[in-house]
């Protein structure tokens, strides 16, 4: 789960990390009040869960409270469209009013889970303000790492070593950097995060450090033990279909093609998209109904797929293991009774109870297929307007 910048900032502040003055606002009047509190020179930043907001006009730096209020009027309720939001964009509901800071230097600091070493790793770089992925490609030597002990956690000396390694050689600065790194590590562990990042971490003219922008990603699997964090979820900006899918415990991602796909298992779902593409079609979505899906879930999945007006044909590819073919078939039949519009559907059922499934589907107007390649070829053909075989 992705947190908004203002939510991440609150968490950092709670753990004693110095952050910018200001706060979050949802009306232009609140923007003005917050700007007045910190002297008027502020950045007004749209709070959306997508990157590229600066270029999309979602960030304005102003000198006075009047200008801040005007910026708030412009940004709040605007439809922000960036390459990451898709063509519909998202409506901005909140802005962060952050005191503008002048500083001498920017550095980078983050905590991640490293698959290779199977440890929590703290990353630091003298190259602040750049995307870390970009730094990793252009000058990987600039990224310094500290690997936390799996039982004892990150040690103070490791955090100090990191500070010195990125050129923070002043004793006071190194100490402050180390305490921020330790705090970030604690946030990572205590919130069950998958990423905690400060970029940039700036060194102000008085020599002290401050988190100018931060990002926190939480592990969805751990939200069951963090009710307070789970409550921070903001669905605004998330496509309606993805919200509906989450409510039905399905994994759905909308894509821009015209062939709806329903598959069990993430790997097979990706492979199904690949094969549709290989035979000249374009998938409209990724949809994994998961293991052991019942008829109700299948019906919900089909409903979500058909909500997408671009969908011209549907491919249902189920390899039964824990998932049973007869349950899937019952779900399809139930969904067909309620659908508002008819599109051709190619169905491939293999594995557990596939024969019973085929029997249930015998009278439904569906196109059967035995192999994945055959199913893909058939669905691509009908999506392009070929008559149903």
């Amino acid at each position, binding site marked *: 789960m992705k947190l908004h910048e203002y939510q991440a900032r609150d968490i950092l502040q709670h753990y004693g990390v110095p952050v910018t003055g200001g706060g979050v606002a949802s009306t232009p009047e609140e923007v003005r009040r917050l700007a007045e509190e910190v002297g008027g020179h502020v950045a007004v930043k749209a709070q959306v869960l997508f990157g590229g907001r600066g270029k999309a006009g979602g960030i304005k730096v102003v000198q006075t409270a009047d200008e801040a209020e005007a910026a708030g009027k412009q940004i709040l309720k605007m439809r922000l469209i960036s390459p990451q939001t898709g063509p519909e964009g998202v409506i901005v509901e909140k802005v962060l009013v952050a005191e503008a800071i002048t500083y001498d230097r920017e550095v980078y600091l983050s905590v991640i889970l490293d698959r290779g070493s199977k440890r929590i790793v703290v990353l630091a770089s003298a190259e602040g303000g750049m995307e870390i992925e970009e730094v*990793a490609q252009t000058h990987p030597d600039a990224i310094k790492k500290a690997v936390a002990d*799996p039982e004892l956690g990150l040690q103070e000396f490791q955090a100090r070593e990191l500070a010195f390694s990125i050129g923070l050689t002043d004793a006071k600065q190194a100490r402050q950097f180390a305490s921020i790194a330790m705090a970030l590590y604690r946030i990572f562990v205590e919130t*069950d*995060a998958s990423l905690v990042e400060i970029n940039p971490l700036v060194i102000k003219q008085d020599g002290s450090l401050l988190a100018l922008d931060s990002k926190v990603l939480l*592990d969805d699997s751990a939200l069951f033990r963090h009710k307070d964090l789970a409550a921070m979820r903001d669905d605004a900006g998330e496509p309606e279909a993805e919200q509906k899918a989450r409510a039905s415990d399905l994994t759905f991602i909308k894509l821009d093609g015209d062939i709806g796909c329903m598959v069990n298992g993430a790997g097979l779902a*990706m492979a199904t998209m690949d094969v549709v593409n290989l035979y000249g079609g374009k998938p409209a979505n990724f949809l994994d109904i998961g293991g052991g899906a019942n008829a109700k879930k299948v019906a919900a999945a089909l409903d979500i797929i058909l909500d997408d007006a671009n969908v011209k044909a549907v491919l249902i590819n189920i390899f039964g293991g824990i998932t049973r073919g007869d349950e899937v078939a019952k779900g399809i039949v139930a969904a067909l009774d309620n659908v508002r519009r008819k599109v051709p559907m190619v169905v491939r059922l293999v594995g557990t109870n596939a024969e019973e499934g085929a029997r249930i589907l015998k009278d439904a107007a569906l196109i059967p297929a035995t192999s994945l390649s055959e199913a893909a070829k058939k669905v691509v053909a009908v999506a392009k307007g070929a008559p149903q075989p």
Partner: protein
Amino acid sequence: MSVLVDKNTRLLVQGITGREGEFHTRAMLGYGTTVVAGVVPGRGGQRAIDDKVPVFNTVREAVEQTQANVSIIFVPAPFAPDAMREAADAGIPFIVCLTEYIPANDMVPTYEYIKQRGARLLGPNCPGLLTPGGAKVGIIPGSIVAEGPVGVVSKSGTLTYEAVDALTKLGIGQTTIIGIGGDPIIGTNFIDCLQLFQDDADTKAIVMIGEIGGTAEQEAAAFIKAHVTKPVVSFIAGQTAPAGKRMGHAGAIISGGEGTAAEKIAALEAAGVAVAKEPGEIAQLVQQRLHQR
């Protein structure tokens, strides 16, 4: 021959009376797996699965009484890390964890704990493994497998079934089929399985099924180039996935320039691996490679 599990496997099921545990224990017994014990804290002394399997309160007790040598875990996510640690501490040398949605950070100390006790972990969030004619430890359907010369290792569940089913239909059986799972932190990885198959005299060819995200396939490619003399056929799922979106498996996310299908395919091809364009092609490539030898 086979790897990791066979006729000598004495299986312990942690969480045997749960819905999943009970259902799949029946299937494993049905396949001919020797299931010697179940563990459910508080239900020691009872018998499960129509009185066929004795239940113990602790793994330690179950091992002492039944000499179980493999444990499979069907325990819900909040309790699964503890279950894995219990099995390792009781001396079980091979632990298979099927549980999905385990908090990733919990696996950091758990993995370390298991390693320090000298045990091997498969998973979590994996379909387990199956040695045709030997033992089924997990949920891979027994109906689609056959005994034969191909070792299969995969990150995915149902996609593996797809590949194995096609192999069997072409008359090509398998030594062992291993699902390693797609979580951020897993025990046994591609390289471990490649080494096991390389060392197994009966395995004549290897199928490796990967997906986008991370660098495990690239590392496997480097290992194949240096250490694997048997033919390897591969498929990478997610060639058409958009960047930055998580596709179900925690692992299947492309961020930055790391882990795209194109990078993985290039690395594998450079290591002499035949990479299939679609799952249906895997079995044909294996057939060709087996005949070339």
